[in-house]
């Protein structure tokens, strides 16, 4: 890995072009998966005779599955389940690209940093982002959010330069000095400039959206249904269904994650060094984040796990807590990380053997 990116590190325009294509693939595959599930459902319902039962009110001899498939593909019958799944998929895509900022921040407490912010810290954060925007020659300044959390992390998201956002945690802002903060922001702005945010957003939100909806339902069943009597048995069944779906859906994730670039972190690190003309601040920042996570492993693991929907941010984080063994892997999608190890990243930045 560390040798393969060397020649292409400077050529982020190529990366930008590839990322646009990848985003289209992610959306296409997502639609395809949902339609496939819909067709399967249709074939099942039709061949079991349920559709006919509803339509004609009487039991007739149901067709064989292959006959059912032929009927559905040739539009002899209306494929209701497919249409519903297609609608769900299209709505998911629209929701993802309309509400990405709220989805990416879901489960966290946050404030926006603006030039009018009262505190010096927020103002400094905004200034640093603006400086990096000037250095990178971006046309728009991304929205900047501060997440109220002790652990040190940061991510960028959005679907274009214009709509981009950067979020960092309070722990990161407090513990890094100005130069290190600048390095981290340069890394995040490089993600924006390279178009990584688009693919990461599409892949991680689309694959997690159903999961998020189910999680919200799940929390409601557990915490919301307790005061009514007689729901216990129903919610048990629902619980089993939710558990099954919760482990089946991440398979979609795996397919979509294939399109997230494995070089993106190296490229963003290289981009940060290009903007700052210095590799030391970024290395220091990464080491500080790493040692801080090691020092507070238990507290941070609890904090990460207590933050709902953290998996949606995972692929976008500058420092992956699951990969580093700090956050527990809670769903099968956690087993398929596209994050490179910190050791390799530091080696690529010219600091070999500073951690083991």
């Amino acid at each position, binding site marked *: 890995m560390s040798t393969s990116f060397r020649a292409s590190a400077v050529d982020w325009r190529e990366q930008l072009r590839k990322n646009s294509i990848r985003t289209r693939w992610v959306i296409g595959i997502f639609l395809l998966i949902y339609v496939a599930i819909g067709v399967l459902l249709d074939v099942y319902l039709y061949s079991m005779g349920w559709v006919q039962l509803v339509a004609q009110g009487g039991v007739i001899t149901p067709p064989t599955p292959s006959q059912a498939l032929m009927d559905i593909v040739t539009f002899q019958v209306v494929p209701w389940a497919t249409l519903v799944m297609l609608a769900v998929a299209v709505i998911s895509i629209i929701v993802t690209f309309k509400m990405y900022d709220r989805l990416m921040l879901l489960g966290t407490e946050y404030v926006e940093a603006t030039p009018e912010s009262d505190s010096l810290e927020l103002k400094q954060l905004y*200034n640093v982002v*603006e*400086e990096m925007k000037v*250095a990178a020659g971006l046309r728009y300044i991304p929205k900047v959010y501060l997440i109220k959390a002790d652990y040190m992390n940061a991510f960028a998201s959005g679907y274009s330069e214009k709509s981009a956002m950067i979020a960092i945690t309070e722990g990161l802002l407090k513990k890094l000095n100005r130069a290190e903060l600048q390095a981290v922001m340069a890394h995040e702005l490089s993600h924006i400039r390279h178009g990584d945010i688009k693919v990461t957003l599409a892949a991680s939100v689309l694959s997690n959206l159903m999961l998020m909806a189910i999680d919200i339902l799940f929390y409601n069943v557990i915490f919301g249904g307790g005061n009514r009597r007689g729901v216990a048995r129903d919610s048990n069944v629902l619980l089993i269904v939710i558990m099954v779906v919760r482990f089946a859906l991440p398979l979609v994730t795996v397919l979509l994650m294939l399109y997230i670039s494995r070089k993106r972190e190296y490229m963003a690190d290289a981009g940060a060094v290009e903007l700052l*003309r210095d590799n030391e601040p970024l290395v220091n920042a990464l080491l500080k984040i790493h040692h801080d996570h090691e020092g507070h492993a238990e507290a941070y693991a609890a904090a990460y796990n207590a933050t709902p929907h953290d998996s949606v941010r995972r692929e976008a984080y500058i420092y992956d807590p699951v990969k580093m063994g700090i956050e527990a892997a809670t769903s099968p999608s956690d087993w398929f990380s596209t994050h490179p190890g910190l050791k390799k990243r530091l080696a690529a930045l010219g600091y070999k053997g500073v951690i083991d």
Partner: protein
Amino acid sequence: MTFVFILIIIAIVAVVAFIGMYNRLIRYIEAVNNNLKQIDIQLDRRFKVFQSLIEVVKKYMNYEQTTLKDVVKLRNQAQTASKQGDQQAKIDAENQISSIAKGINVVFENYPDLKASQNALQLQEEIVNTENKLAFAKQAYNDSIERYNADKKSFVQAFVVSCFKDKLDKTFVYWNLPEETIKEREDYTVKL
């Protein structure tokens, strides 16, 4: 027949490649022009920020009136030079404003009360921010010149440039310090 066909294909590929190179060079030239304007924007911003900064500083101490006058004078010099198209004179004047900014920071060091106050921290952040933005704008400008020059002088592109000399062959001055200033900065040591 096939020979003619192959020739036509080669000609089409060559024309497409030629147009691609031409367009890329134009894009690079416009990027340089835009980045130069970005420096102007940052310079303008700095002028305004420092004027208001000096106003604030004057409230704390009888900071010499001359500083403000110096800034205004240098600013005017830069603008006249810019109008006359004298890039080097403009660069010189702007560089002198930078040295005044350092003077303001030194003034803060001499007044511990002022330095400790939240206001002063904000002012310092403002100065650092302003100077950083300007430095990064200059960096982006020089980078875009480098990209353009490298492309212009490359093997095949040089031929494209020679076909459209007036449109594609531009000479841009890198943002740099004059020789004597470099010497001065190099010999500089901190005196405490």
